[in-house]
């Protein structure tokens, strides 16, 4: 079949035992899923070289996003900031993998390698008041928003100095100071929360009459989520009330082992936005500068009160879905194709070619980040584990919610409550 996806599809028998490389060239029987061709410059059998895909194809209902020219889009300072943030994301995630295999962190850990351009491109444009809502792949979103590497690493180690006191874990990064509203384990669950944060922003302006522009909320989620009801329900509500929110789809083409094309009738997610009356934009998510340009416009739109935007970032995760995923299903050719488009390498190349920086400056940044990450690990290692007394404290904001004990006192007044051993 002439379907564009066939180079990257999986074979029928047990994927865990079949050798992927040997099935690369085999024509496979039809499958259930989309038969539509994607955009010509992605995932076709003749994989284009990166230089051909420099221009992203963007489309919108209103002419919000202009075509990009390859002029200098950033200053040196901005460039260094972006580079440092992406290096931090990459180095941190690599260290997470190491620590996981050394038995320092447990459970489900989902790494962001390869997708740094999306996080950096969007979040570095936000103010401190703006909110970020993410999924379980949230370490780098938290880091980009300003949560310290120490706090995130400690949280991953389950230590009490973590950003959520060790109670959340990898999939629940919250930080009130930096307005990181999570971290959600179920997909799609965070989108309504992001819509609520955007609603508060609208409410504060219109009902409470607080001065200043709208605080913007960014909701990050993946391609799998775009088939979930909560996504559509929130697109509807956000467009209806012109909420100051940007929906960022990190389309990395895979939902664990489910290819986006096999799960979606129309795989072009950005096209779904106009159905709700909001602009839909597609951008090359491996290019941080392109992402940043689109992000600028969509965040400005939201801040001005013009409503939401749906931005689909075509990106890729270099590692498996989580550290427990053997990642045997994806075609090595596909992985190689995206590895060539590594956002960090691309940014480095851009900055050096345009004489914004020299090699030594970038190396200095890499060294600095290495130290930051090492320090984070050390800090997390030395931090204490949560004591028993932490068990019951945060269940309720008002601990009277545990009710009245048989002796007439509130259960939270029981001295054993603060020790974590009270019977509640």
């Amino acid at each position: 079949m002439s379907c564009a996806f066939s180079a990257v599809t999986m074979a029928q028998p047990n994927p865990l035992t079949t050798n992927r490389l040997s099935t690369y060239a085999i024509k496979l029987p039809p499958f259930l899923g989309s038969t539509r061709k994607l955009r010509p410059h992605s995932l076709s059998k003749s994989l284009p070289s990166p230089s051909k895909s420099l221009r992203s194809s963007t489309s919108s209902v209103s002419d919000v996003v202009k075509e990009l020219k390859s002029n200098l889009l950033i200053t040196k300072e901005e460039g260094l900031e972006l580079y440092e943030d992406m290096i931090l994301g990459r180095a941190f995630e690599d260290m997470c993998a190491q620590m996981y295999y050394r038995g320092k962190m447990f459970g489900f850990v989902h790494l962001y390698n390869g997708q740094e351009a999306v996080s950096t491109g969007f979040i570095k444009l936000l103010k401190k008041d703006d909110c970020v809502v993410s999924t379980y792949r949230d370490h780098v979103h938290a880091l980009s928003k300003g949560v310290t590497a120490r706090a995130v690493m400690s949280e991953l180690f389950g230590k009490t100095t973590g950003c959520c006191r060790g109670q959340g874990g990898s999939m629940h990064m919250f930080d009130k100071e930096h307005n990181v509203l999570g971290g959600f384990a179920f997909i799609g669950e965070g989108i309504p929360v992001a819509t609520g944060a955007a609603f508060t922003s609208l409410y504060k302006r219109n009902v409470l009459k607080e001065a200043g522009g709208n605080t913007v909320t960014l909701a990050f989620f993946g391609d799998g989520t775009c088939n979930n009801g909560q996504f559509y329900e929130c697109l509807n509500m956000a467009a209806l009330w012109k909420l100051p929110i940007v929906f960022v789809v990190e389309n990395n083409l895979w939902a664990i082992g489910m290819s986006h094309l096999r799960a979606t009738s129309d795989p072009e997610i950005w096209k779904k936005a106009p159905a709700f009356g909001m602009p839909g934009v597609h951008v090359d998510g491996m290019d941080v500068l392109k992402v940043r340009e689109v992000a600028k416009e969509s965040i400005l739109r939201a801040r001005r009160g013009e409503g939401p935007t749906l931005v689909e970032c075509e990106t890729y995760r270099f590692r498996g879905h989580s550290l427990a995923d053997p990642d045997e299903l994806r075609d090595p050719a596909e992985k190689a194709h995206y590895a060539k488009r590594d956002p960090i390498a691309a940014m480095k190349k851009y900055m050096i070619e345009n004489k914004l920086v020299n090699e030594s400056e970038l190396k200095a940044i890499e060294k600095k980040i290495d130290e930051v990450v090492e320090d984070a690990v050390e800090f997390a290692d030395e931090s204490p584990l949560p004591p028993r007394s932490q068990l019951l404290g945060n269940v309720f904001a008002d601990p009277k919610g545990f009710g009245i004990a048989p002796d007439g006192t509130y259960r939270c007044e029981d001295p054993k409550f603060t020790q974590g051993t009270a019977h509640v």
Partner: protein
Amino acid sequence: MAAIFQGIGTTASLSTSNSFDSKRFQFPSRRSYLSERKGNLFVMRSEGRIIGGSKGRGTSPLVTSAVASKAESSSTSTASKPGHELLLFEALREGLEEEMIRDPTVCVMGEDVGHYGGSYKVTKGLAEKYGDLRVLDTPIAENSFTGMAIGAAMTGLRPVVEGMNMGFLLLAFNQISNNCGMLHYTSGGQFKIPVVIRGPGGVGRQLGAEHSQRLESYFQSIPGIQMVACSTPYNAKGLMKAAIRSENPVILFEHVLLYNLKERIPDEEYVLSLEEAEMVRPGEHVTILTYSRMRYHVMQAAKTLVNKGYDPEVIDIRSLKPFDLYTIGNSVKKTHRVLIVEECMRTGGIGASLTAAINENFHDYLDAPIVCLSSQDVPTPYAGTLEEWTVVQPAQIVTAVEQLCR
């Protein structure tokens, strides 16, 4: 149904005062409150834990009908009595509106709450006064607008989410369980979720199985939420206000058939405690624990029981999660027999949990096994006769008490 007056504070002062002026009403008891219509608030939390008996709120006359119906106004002049008379849904609205005036971050979200005024008129007139954003008409997307309320609560608002029928909130179970209950904990205490989720539930008049669900049994295991059930206009208003003021997420269960209950409630502002149970009728022979609509079936049965010579103690548990084991415990220690009457299903209902809790804590005080009368484990049928048989009726309560007290 006779209008009930539940006095606040001690009973003596209320009934004996002749030159009564509701604006300058003083309680001579240990709490002295001024009863200005506007301004002063007093909190209706009982400070001392009263060992059995009434909470000093006066002996209310028994409610004689089991089903809420439009009350006939009292034959005596209402002008001389303190307080004002209203229906339960109006009491809810009053409580909601008072909180909206008091705190501009309180907002309402739900289907048809705005222009339509709420399917049970609880939010009638509010959208005209406070605008479309504060009384938000949402599209039919329970999961998402409940999640939106949670996100708004995390960022500083205090939303009140209305489920048009509690059963619809099954669609919001994801958000209620995962986010509403858990986020305060998983964020290490950083974000609080002061959201109120309310709506009518319970078995109505031949509404069919899906509109007759009792969600309290499904939600009770979710850690991090509180559940309360109102049963009279007085406690409806008080619980509504308490729920809105609470920093915890609270689910307020109303009942479809109780919205037209009429009662005289105080003019003064009052807030009830979310964790306390309500002593409806003190007694000696048996403790009957109930909540919501079953309270009225119990009171009707109580009338029969009193005529037969029994003295049941009736407690409206009000707080479905957590249970007020103090009030319940004191009652058990006095009567040694417990009957639970609830509308939940037999399996896994509130009654089941309550049975377990009482057995665990007060086993030594029981002279007989706890009897729990619940609805049948049957999807509520449409036919009136069948529907009647799925729900506990006063006759069954009388029989159960007679057997228990043998």
